[in-house]
């Protein structure tokens, strides 16, 4: 599915990643092994996960990469008793960042106890809109029912006990689908099918996804890059479905207009992974960086690295975790 990586290796994007993004990422790692959203900020699970995924694509050769081992230690120390991770230290409940932590550990610390506990939490975590009570209330409140989404479908929420949304559902599907299929329990397989159908149900009319509101009061919602990319990666096993092709058309058709590093890097990731690479938007990223006003965040740096990685282990590797 990937383009010829030898050709890709030769682009300015790879040099930019090697000379600018990776050093920036390594320098911005905190002493506790984690990363904040920006250099100098307190460590959090989400930016640490993106940084760990990025560094794992370009590890230091022939030696233990202390940045990677430090990040793994950060995750081991910050994990909650129930196996989840909080979005910020001090919060007592886990959240969507558990998917990201599991994703990062599945690439860099396969079979670790932390990963297995995280995956267990993720499989058992259900959103607030999965219960019968919520569905009943929604049905009774039909007069205020403003959207057309199916009430029987659900995925994962941002925070405990709230509704399913496209991004957290996509992250969870990506992680759980990376497990060997034969190790999945039947209830997890069934859950994933419901979540994938939820994603299809929430697709915008013209292709692509926003946070999860394809239609409000009869007005079609506009797709956004981030949710579209994560949903496409989560649903990539359904590549032949027309919804996926329509969404890729939207992403490809608009990719020339993206002006932010996140949109450029993320769209490049999805288009490459799903075989639609045309204009190499990764080559535009060094130009954006040179003209930067606001310093790039850790996720922006990490996504740029991931968009330029020839191996793409972070998407294609299997975690090896036991379901």
């Amino acid at each position, binding site marked *: 599915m990937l383009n010829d990586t030898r050709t890709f290796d030769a682009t300015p994007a790879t040099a930019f990643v090697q000379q600018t993004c990776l050093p920036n990422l390594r320098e911005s790692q905190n002493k506790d092994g984690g990363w904040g959203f920006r250099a100098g900020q307190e460590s959090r699970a989400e930016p640490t996960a993106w940084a760990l995924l990025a560094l794992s694509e370009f590890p230091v050769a022939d030696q233990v990469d202390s940045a990677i081992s430090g990040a793994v230690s950060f995750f081991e120390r910050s994990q909650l008793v129930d196996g989840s991770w909080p979005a910020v230290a001090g919060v007592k409940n886990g959240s*969507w960042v558990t998917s990201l932590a599991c994703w990062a550990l599945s690439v860099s610390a396969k079979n670790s106890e932390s990963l297995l506990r995280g995956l267990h939490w993720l499989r058992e975590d259900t959103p607030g809109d999965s219960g019968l009570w919520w569905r009943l209330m929604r049905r009774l409140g039909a007069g205020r029912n403003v959207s057309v989404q199916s009430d029987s479908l659900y995925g994962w929420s941002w925070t405990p006990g709230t509704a399913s*949304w496209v991004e957290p559902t996509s992250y969870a599907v990506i992680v759980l689908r990376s497990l060997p299929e034969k190790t999945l329990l039947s209830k997890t397989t069934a859950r994933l099918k419901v979540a994938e159908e939820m994603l299809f149900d929430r697709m915008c009319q013209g292709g692509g996804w926003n946070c999860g509101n394809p239609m409000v009061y009869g007005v079609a919602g506009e797709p956004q890059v981030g949710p579209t990319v994560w949903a496409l990666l989560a649903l990539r096993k359904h590549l032949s479905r027309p919804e996926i092709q329509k969404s890729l058309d939207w992403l490809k058709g608009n990719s020339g207009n993206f002006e932010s590093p996140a949109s450029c890097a993320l769209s490049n990731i999805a288009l490459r992974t799903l075989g639609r690479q045309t204009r190499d938007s990764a080559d535009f990223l060094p130009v954006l960086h040179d003209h930067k006003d606001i*310093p790039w965040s850790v996720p922006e740096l990490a996504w740029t690295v991931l968009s330029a990685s020839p191996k793409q282990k972070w998407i294609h590797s299997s975690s090896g975790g036991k379901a």
Partner: protein
Amino acid sequence: MPRTAPSLQPPFSRPDSRVAIRRVADYESDLAAMLYETLQEFALPVRGKTVLLKPNMVGSDPLGMMNTHPALIAASRETFLRLGADKVLIGDGPAMDRDTQAVIESIHLREYAGPLASIFVDLNVDDVVRVALRTRASRLRELYLPKTVNGVDFLVSLPKLKTHHWAGVTLSLKNMFGVVPGSCYGWPKNILHWAGIDRAILDINAAVRPDFAIVDGIIGMEGNGPIQGVLKPCGTVICGDDPVAVDATCARVMGLQPEKVKHIAHAATLLGHMQIEKINQIGESIEQSCTPFAVLKAFEHLRQTSAASPSNVN
């Protein structure tokens, strides 16, 4: 040093509030001159202080429909600097789009406000501090809020005049949802909706207490706001030292009864004045400025009975 939020006071024990309504033809007008003239009347204690302007930046907005116009953001910044503020920051945490750089590019903020590196704060990913809420209107008991919001001396809510399909209107009080960081609660910040949107607005405002409000009513949004509504030219900027009074005035300008907007009524119990006799009006009168906004059927009951009736939106 964290901001010292003013105490919570019931209406009978607080002085009257002041709200100014100014007529403005368009975004090409000299907004900075108008604001400077208006804000001088308030004698705001901002000399030597750090001010945070919190505009409403919901998401990418290439058509300029749903976000506070960058011309008013830039003019507000210029005004507070002219009033002697040491530093004037601009910060928001877009609720519907986590790519804040894309939002900034889409509204051309840099072209109006200049280089942003040292003045813009993405509140979605700022370092946070745990804040125990002072009120218990919603199910929320605590929130993690941006350190920048907690650390500035003077907080200005700078929303756009819009209807809202869940809250009725979204003005300076509802605009404070934007200080709740997406990096802790997601995009959208769904926990606030599940906690009860109207009550969560009171809890957040009681915690962060915006000191001043400037509402972009030059072109507002009616109908199915805050994102998918219809542009509504209104030709006003409404500002004041009491966000509750400002929002109540905005509602009246929109042809709506603030007493029936739940979150304004909730906020009026502890945070400011909603009653018209407790609001000293500066500039234009409400009658001169009233431009009835179309509302969704679910919010027909908010209409002033005497207001001209634009067509409803289903």
